[in-house]
């Protein structure tokens, strides 16, 4: 099984998927949701992190923040009930929970930069062993740049989680010795959730806490091209 998994990996992501040895995107989002304490104030980044909200039972009292001036963000509206004045940071229509509030951008980023958010969850192009994050610019010099609130969230939230696939579509590790893409912030990431593992950024480097069944630490090191430590718990995908 392991040998086949490795062969599948060499052939690219599709081979892995067919063997089922990875978490799907819903399971990845659900795994992060489990680590968010009840009652936290949380900002979920655009893309996959947004889907964590689907796994947060309202009874847990987690309050979602949106950069564009919302606390208490609720799920998308029923079809036909979208309000163009009520959108999230990804500019998709959303709703407001009971007890939610609106405020201007300066106050919204005071919440972010002033250390008032308990957690933010961001996507990544690369995360280094020192917890450096690159998630706003894929390096191409002729690309149209866009940074949004990523740099503010990365330095401002008390804890920064990264949620991302372990490898790029081309099969390259998103965990790296040193980021080659432009940085969002240095040394900001606390924990990384991938489709294969949960990994903490520590002063001693990356420590694997959980690994998806069927993988060994050695295999994870090999595809990451990194020395990873830890005595990970094996978990179901």
């Amino acid at each position, binding site marked *: 099984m392991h040998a086949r998994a490795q062969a599948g990996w060499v052939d690219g992501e599709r081979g892995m998927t067919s063997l089922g040895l990875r978490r799907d995107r819903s399971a990845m989002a659900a795994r992060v949701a489990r680590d968010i304490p009840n009652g936290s104030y949380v900002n979920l980044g655009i893309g996959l992190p947004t889907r964590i909200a689907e796994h947060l039972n309202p009874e847990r009292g987690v309050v979602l923040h949106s950069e564009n001036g919302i606390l208490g963000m609720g799920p998308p509206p029923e079809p036909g009930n979208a309000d163009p004045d009520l959108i999230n940071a990804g500019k998709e229509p959303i709703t407001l929970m009971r007890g939610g509030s609106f405020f*201007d951008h300066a106050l919204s980023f005071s919440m972010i930069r002033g250390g008032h958010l308990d957690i933010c969850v961001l996507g990544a192009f690369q995360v280094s062993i020192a917890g450096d994050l690159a998630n706003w610019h894929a390096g191409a010099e002729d690309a149209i*740049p866009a*940074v949004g*609130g990523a740099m503010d969230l990365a*330095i401002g939230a008390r804890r920064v989680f990264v949620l991302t696939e372990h490898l790029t579509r081309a099969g390259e590790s998103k965990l790296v010795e040193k980021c080659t893409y432009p940085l969002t912030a240095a040394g900001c990431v606390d924990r990384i959730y991938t489709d294969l593992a949960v990994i903490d950024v520590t002063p001693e480097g990356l420590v694997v806490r959980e690994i998806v069944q069927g993988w060994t630490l050695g295999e994870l090191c090999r595809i990451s091209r990194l020395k990873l430590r830890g005595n990970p718990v094996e978990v179901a995908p």
Partner: protein
Amino acid sequence: MSSKVVADVEAAVGGIESGSTILIGGFGSAGLPSELIDALIANGASDLTIVSNNAGNGEQGIAALLQARRVRKILCSFPRQSDSFVFDALYRAGEIELELVPQGTLAERIRAAGAGIGAFYTQTGFGTRLAQGKESRIIDGKGHLLEHPIHADFALIRAELADPLGNLTYRKSARNFGPVMATAARCTIAQVSRVVGIGELDPEAIVTPGIFVRRVVCTRGRRQAGWTESAA
């Protein structure tokens, strides 16, 4: 007592001259003062510096202003959108200058201008390529960048309700940059959905006090069917 309410959008943007720096509210299309932007295009001012979170969508609003070649420079946090083709083409052709500013730094630089703050230090952007050319300093063991205020000649914003004194309330997440931009321009112009009488806005609920607002114009009629206007 004179009212700040002007008759139409043409009057509202009167006096905006070429070379002006203009703050434009909105996050995507929420809070975007579309009618004021259209009037600004008709007004003809060029060589503008625009400060706004995005650089336009499709061929409307800020994109139309760019397409009309009125803008020399834009400061924004997120110019790239799925439909930002007007900006993208001008940028790739080197026909517009871009100053990319992290969103929180953009809001705070505008706030600093409105609050009379000379400059401020922030951790955002330290150690990144956006730190190039900026003074830095270690404060409490953490790297910070020195950021300067963004002063403007005009601010174009969209609010929900206004009174003749220029007091404003907003609607939902259309508030975004409006209140902070209103403080940072020599002349702030607000387009609103409705004008109410003096005393009709709850003083506890006024978000932008009239001291920050020079002109108000009512632009109703663009609301989608089924929307209910919030009451004063």
